[in-house]
């Protein structure tokens, strides 16, 4: 317990822990000291001087964002001298700030604007000195950098350093200082990963998302918080709407989104989205009414004899539950399969319950991290950030990746298995744990597994025995997690095996998946193959694109777009996207997390469409509202979540053949396409796309 310090701020007594900064102490009693360079959560730099306060008995003004409280201090946050100094600084800033609040995107949310108003600052006091050669747009994709508005507070530099690539800095010096990349190269050539963390902290309008430009003022925005749906790490995401349209997304409380969460929302308002049901008429699909489409789907599925369902990983638990219920109740089928977009999920059915799943918080607190798989850092930037933070805090990192990578560069140990030998390497580490008596003999299930593991031959993974022994030693003790972007059954089951051997049962395994809700299907569906079924209903999944075209007499597809599978369907139904749905997901840490319908949609909720289809089939679902579905989903998940056991090192996992190692391809950030659609030549691009859909 830190010592408590009592001081007076503007005459009010306040008691805070030792080490608190004056600015925070003031904030704790509701006194906001103006600041431009300080940003909660970033290291303080003390450079803007706006937070100066007067301390009784001290001749110099004090920088409240860096100065700690002292017992008995008497602080004045708005004395005449302090206000004079603040106005002076703001006058100076305005003399270099070539901005006009009437057209600036930041107006309404701009700190400079607010303080200028609050302190009635004379903007023209020192005239304007902004040489023409300072650029008003550096021409980067996705975000505009208008250096004519930059006030050199340095927040973006610190945010980029703390959360991302650390590519920004003060360049040149003295009076010609600017904030930019090294040699003022474009962001895309400087290693920027377009996380947008810099935008989030900029106190003025210097950094702005291109997509939001001229689409509404800050005070017109309506904001709803939900989870990002682009991977299972579940970053909170705020979606801002203006005039009913999405104009921007930004991070919620945890303060971070990667490029997909920050900029990957264009698909939601894409003109290619399905907005009305389609039914097959000979060779073509024709738009029709919901009633007609549902009747056709109900009739077709009922008439098919045997029905199977396939559901994708990017819908809520409620959708999965209602889908399973629809197939069972209305079409008498228990055959609901789950497609993870080409990723096998069998491993999870033998995995030790939801509580064993880790979230980013577990990774950040870990002391030992085993990071497996390709493109882990690039594909899952939030996982990279968590791992980096843990390593900065002293964690030991073991990277399993045949290639060099950003994480390999900061790893304590980098193991490079030969192609496809990740799982073999994990088995070898497990054996080394046992052979070296480094395992946790007391942990559940370990004693029984040991004899068989001792018998195991050491599989050849192309890694030296010394390195394997070192990995086993490194990983054996302390809070440990396995983070894997390699989602093969073998890798996941052996990862779980390693965790079992070392007695880690809670918050220990983080499989990374590029969808929001990858576990729901496993937990909520019966898990069948669809083999031999004559009627297939594919919801939010595109088996044709995954190379497994469904072989059915009657095919219903429900999706966001006219996918390859939808093109061959008999009935196509539109689907609400993840961001448009209220419901729950099984989050990365294995917890149920509620999500909101943050983006607007004219479609019925997904569960409602399924309920309507059940009605059309004459066998209604037992749900009256989304709450009923939620309760049912929760019940099913609770029933199964703890009953799953760890696989053994030599059990089911080993009986599967090691499959060739597949590189997990990530969606490219598509800003080129986006900017072409959104900007110049937009009309042609969009109408062409429309015609394609219509055709």
């Amino acid at each position: 317990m830190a010592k408590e310090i009592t001081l007076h701020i503007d005459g009010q007594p306040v008691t805070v822990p030792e080490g608190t900064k004056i600015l925070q102490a003031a904030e704790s009693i509701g006194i906001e000291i103006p600041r431009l360079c300080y940003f909660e959560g970033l290291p303080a730099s003390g450079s803007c001087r706006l937070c100066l306060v007067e301390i009784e008995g001290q001749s110099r003004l004090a920088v409240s964002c860096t100065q700690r409280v002292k017992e008995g201090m008497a602080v004045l946050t708005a004395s005449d001298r302090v206000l004079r100094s603040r106005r002076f600084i703001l006058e100076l800033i305005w003399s270099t700030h070539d901005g006009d609040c009437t057209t600036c995107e930041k107006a309404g949310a701009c700190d400079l604007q607010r303080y200028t108003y609050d302190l009635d600052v004379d903007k023209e006091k020192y005239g304007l000195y902004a040489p023409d050669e300072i650029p008003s747009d550096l021409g980067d994709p996705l975000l505009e950098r208008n250096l004519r508005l930059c006030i050199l507070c340095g927040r973006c530099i610190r945010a980029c350093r703390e959360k991302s690539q650390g590519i920004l800095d003060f360049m040149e010096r003295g009076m010609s200082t600017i904030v930019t990349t090294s040699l003022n190269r474009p962001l895309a050539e400087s290693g920027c990963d377009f996380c947008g963390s810099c935008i989030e902290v900029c106190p003025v309008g210097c950094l702005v998302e291109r997509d939001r430009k001229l689409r509404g003022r800050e005070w017109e925005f309506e904001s709803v918080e939900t989870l990002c749906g682009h991977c299972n790490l579940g970053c909170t995401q705020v979606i801002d709407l203006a005039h009913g349209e999405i104009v921007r997304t930004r991070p919620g409380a945890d303060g971070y989104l990667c490029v997909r969460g920050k900029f990957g929302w264009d698909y939601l308002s894409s003109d290619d989205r399905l907005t009305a049901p389609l039914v097959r008429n000979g060779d073509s699909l024709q738009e029709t009414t919901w009633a007609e489409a549902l009747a056709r789907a109900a009739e077709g599925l009922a008439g098919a004899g045997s029905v199977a369902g396939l559901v994708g990983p990017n819908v809520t638990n409620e959708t999965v539950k209602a889908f399973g219920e629809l197939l069972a109740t209305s079409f008498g089928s228990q055959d609901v399969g789950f497609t993870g977009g080409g990723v096998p999920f069998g491993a999870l059915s033998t995995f030790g319950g939801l509580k064993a799943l880790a979230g980013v918080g577990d990774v950040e607190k870990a002391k030992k991290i085993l990071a497996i798989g390709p493109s882990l850092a690039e594909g899952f930037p939030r996982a990279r950030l968590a791992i980096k933070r843990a390593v900065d805090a002293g964690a030991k990192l073991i990277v399993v990746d045949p290639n060099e990578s950003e994480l390999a560069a900061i790893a304590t140990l980098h193991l490079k298995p030969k192609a496809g030998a990740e799982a073999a390497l994990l088995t070898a580490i497990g054996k080394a744990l046992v052979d070296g008596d480094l395992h946790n003999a007391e942990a559940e299930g370990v004693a029984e597994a040991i004899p068989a593991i001792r018998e195991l031959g050491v599989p050849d993974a192309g890694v030296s025995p010394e390195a394997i022994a070192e990995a086993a030693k490194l990983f054996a003790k302390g809070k440990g997690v396995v983070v894997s972007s390699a989602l093969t059954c073998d890798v996941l089951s052996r990862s779980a095996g390693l965790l079992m051997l070392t007695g880690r049962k809670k918050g220990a395994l983080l499989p990374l998946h590029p969808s929001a809700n990858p576990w729901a299907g496993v937990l909520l569906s019966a898990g069948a193959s669809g083999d031999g079924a004559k009627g297939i209903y594919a919801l939010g999944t595109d088996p044709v694109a995954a190379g497994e075209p469904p072989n059915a007499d009657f095919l219903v597809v429900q999706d966001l777009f006219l996918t390859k599978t939808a093109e061959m369907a008999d009935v196509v139904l539109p689907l609400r996207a993840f961001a448009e749905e209220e419901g729950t997901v099984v989050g990365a840490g294995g917890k149920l997390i509620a999500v909101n319908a943050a983006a607007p949609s004219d479609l019925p909720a997904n569960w409602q469409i399924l309920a309507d289809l059940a009605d059309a089939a004459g066998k209604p679902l037992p749900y009256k509202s989304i709450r009923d579905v939620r309760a049912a989903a929760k019940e099913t998940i609770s029933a199964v979540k703890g009953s799953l056991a760890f696989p053994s090192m030599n059990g089911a996992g080993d009986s599967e053949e090691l499959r060739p190692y597949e590189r997990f391809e990530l969606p490219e950030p598509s800003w080129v396409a986006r900017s072409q659609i959104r900007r110049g030549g937009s009309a042609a691009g969009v109408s062409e796309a429309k015609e394609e859909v219509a055709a």
Partner: protein
Amino acid sequence: MSTATEVICAPQQALEALRAFAADGMCGRCIPCPIATRQSIAMLERITSGEGEAVDLDRLTRVSTELIDAARCPKGEEAAKKLGEALASPEFARHVEGICGSGACAALTRYRVIPERCTMCGACQEACPRDAIEGDPFIAWRGDNKPYVIRLEKCDGCAKCVAACPADAIERVT
């Protein structure tokens, strides 16, 4: 014989001090100091080139007092104090009124030919880049020699005539 370039007036001294600070002492890592320095340099440049206004003096005074609090490091504080000391000189107000008084600021300095000393050699007229000197060379027995005079409205105070005059017959009037 004195040349104007060796002389330095108080505003120029302040300007040089700030320029030296900007080039060497200042780090540019706090927000107020570099801007204040840049603005002060711009104001002093105006003042020493005859474009200064009374409001510039107020602004400079404000910088010199406020930057002491606002600057992050003692270097900026010291620069502000030095500026404040310099501003105590009455020369600043005179510059704004249009007079340098030391010959340092060409734009605020004017010359005249002293008729009693002038030998009417014409060297100044040759030297003047602005064609600001009128007069005819001395020709004996002629009664209507035009004496040499400097047209103040054309003169820009460069002092080339002063250097050129062999008779030391040109003096500063402001």
